[in-house]
């Protein structure tokens, strides 16, 4: 217990401590107690609010895409069709690609206006290739992160779909439910628990997306794709402002806890059913 407590408490306390210090790596001698200056500076920094918004946009979009597409694909992959086993492996494999590599592949092989596949397709149709990261930076990051997390959602939801009692679906057919009614009245409620689990786990990881942004846009152009994790990184290791970064870190902890609080509450209620 004591070890676990230390394990948790020391970094937390140090972060909180630094967040109240004036502590810049470029001028370590100028350290002093700063009070809430770091926080004041943070909340008055327009970058902070942008990064907060970006974090939530990224989270919400990726969740919507992965859960929505994941549910559809799970129902699809539950049907019997030739080559289903191979299709399943292919659909799940992106999950094994590490984020940095995935981002690099997307940046250079897929979305690059000159060398990328999308650019080639656009040219094949005689269109102007799109410079994705310059023109739609946030959408591009969302696409990459969704691509990485879709297999996870699919995997969890597919196992859930498979556990649906087939007699229930047959009973619904006898009751006159068509394909859509079966999906909305039988399959979707059955999946609600699995969907909650997917949302909870993805949320934990999506609040801290970093590698994909660092590799592709570095938070830009401007601050268009700077999320909270990237902002903290930029404060600490690009501007060497440990105090300000720590303040951002504390805010990130608060944000994660607020989200987790609501999530756990709603999911706990669901798991009771």
């Amino acid at each position, binding site marked *: 217990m004591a070890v676990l407590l230390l394990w948790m408490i020391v970094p937390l306390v140090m972060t909180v401590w630094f967040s109240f210090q004036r502590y810049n790596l470029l001028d370590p001698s100028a350290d002093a107690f700063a009070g809430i200056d770091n926080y004041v500076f943070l909340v008055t920094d327009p970058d902070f609010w942008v990064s907060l918004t970006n974090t939530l946009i990224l989270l919400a979009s990726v969740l919507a895409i992965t859960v929505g597409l994941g549910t559809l694909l799970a129902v699809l992959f539950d049907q019997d069709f030739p080559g289903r086993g191979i299709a399943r492996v292919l659909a799940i494999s992106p999950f094994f690609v590490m984020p940095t590599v995935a981002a690099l592949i997307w940046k250079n092989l897929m979305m690059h206006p000159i060398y990328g596949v999308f650019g080639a397709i656009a040219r094949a149709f005689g269109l102007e290739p799109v410079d994705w990261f310059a023109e739609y930076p946030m959408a591009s990051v969302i696409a990459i992160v969704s691509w990485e997390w879709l297999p996870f959602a699919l995997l969890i939801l597919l196992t859930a779909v498979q556990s649906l009692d087939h*007699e229930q679906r047959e009973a619904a057919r006898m009751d006159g*439910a068509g394909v859509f009614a079966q999906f909305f009245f039988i399959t979707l409620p059955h999946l609600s628990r699995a969907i909650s689990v997917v949302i909870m786990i993805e949320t934990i990881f999506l609040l801290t997306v970093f590698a994909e942004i660092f590799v592709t846009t570095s938070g830009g152009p401007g601050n268009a794709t700077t999320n909270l994790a990237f902002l903290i990184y930029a404060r600490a290791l690009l501007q060497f402002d440990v105090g300000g970064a720590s303040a951002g870190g504390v805010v990130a902890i608060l944000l994660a806890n607020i989200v987790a609080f609501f999530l756990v509450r709603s999911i706990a209620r669901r798991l009771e059913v």
Partner: protein
Amino acid sequence: MATVTLRGLRKSYGPVEAIKGIDLDVADREFVVFVGPSGCGKSTLLRMIAGLEQITSGDLLIEGARVNDVGPADRGLAMVFQSYALYPHMTVRQNMGFALRLARVPKAERDRKVEAAAAVLQLQPYLERTPKELSGGQRQRVAIGRAIVRQPKVFLFDEPLSNLDAALRGQMRIELARLHEELQATMIYVTHDQVEAMTMADKIVVLQAGRVEQVGSPLELYHSPANLFVAGFIGSPRMNMLQSEVAGADATGVAIDVGPGARIVVPVQQGQVRQGDRVTLGIRPESLAAYDEGQLAGTVRLVERLGGMTLLHVGTEADLPLIVQTDGADVTSAHAPIRLAVDAAACHVFSADGLALPHLATHRLVARPEA
């Protein structure tokens, strides 16, 4: 008039034929039970009638109209599943009203119908609960209620009582019989439990390996089984089967030697059977009785006392195992020598191809529909 007619119904899974041509007429308001061992195709046949399985060939007629290509919801049937298949996230009321909701029946009418069905099944106190808050028997009743609400032409039951304990099963059996009378509906019921078949059915269909072995009233099957399979399947404890030889055959019946100097004459039509032919003699356990001047001699090997009756497992002199059903007050002890009398009139004779020789007289409880 909800009749169901099967004409040459077949079902193949690739090269494997599961249902091998079934003809059957289910009359209006009849309670028909499909019975047979596991894998005999009885559930498949029911699912074909329900529309959950495609019919490979043959015709299925409901009320005289061919419904092979009609979807399961439009055949006017309702099915009660073995697992009940209740929708876990819906309340009892929503479960029972689901079909009406899909059919866009107004809420007031829906509620009225659900409550009427709940009243029949004594489910009113549970309408707002979800299935997991109910006991096994209550869930079973909700599954039946879901069928009743739709007011189907025909009810289909797929082994509905097999998940209940013995006491509840007995109770639900009575309840189903009452429902059948109350609703005046045609019902088709699948089970492997012959007690359910015997007690509830107007007509039993015995199936084996995708074929109909015999169709008839419960007592008809019991007293005049058409062949060895039906004779062995219907009745508990099982009918004793003795391999024997015909000692003589004439218009009064077939004579068989059941032991040295012990000849019985079974009053059946001699048909093609001649002296010396191999036949199987079928003796129900209750057609044997301990009797000092009995034709069969043997030794009691095991005594099973069930209270109301006692089962004696006897080995004859020729070392054939026999089960004898006697009174619960029987005092015979194991390993004692015993002589058994055979009620020849109640015996059955099966020729070498397994078919029963018809009795000269029909049992007084069996009304022959064709006679």
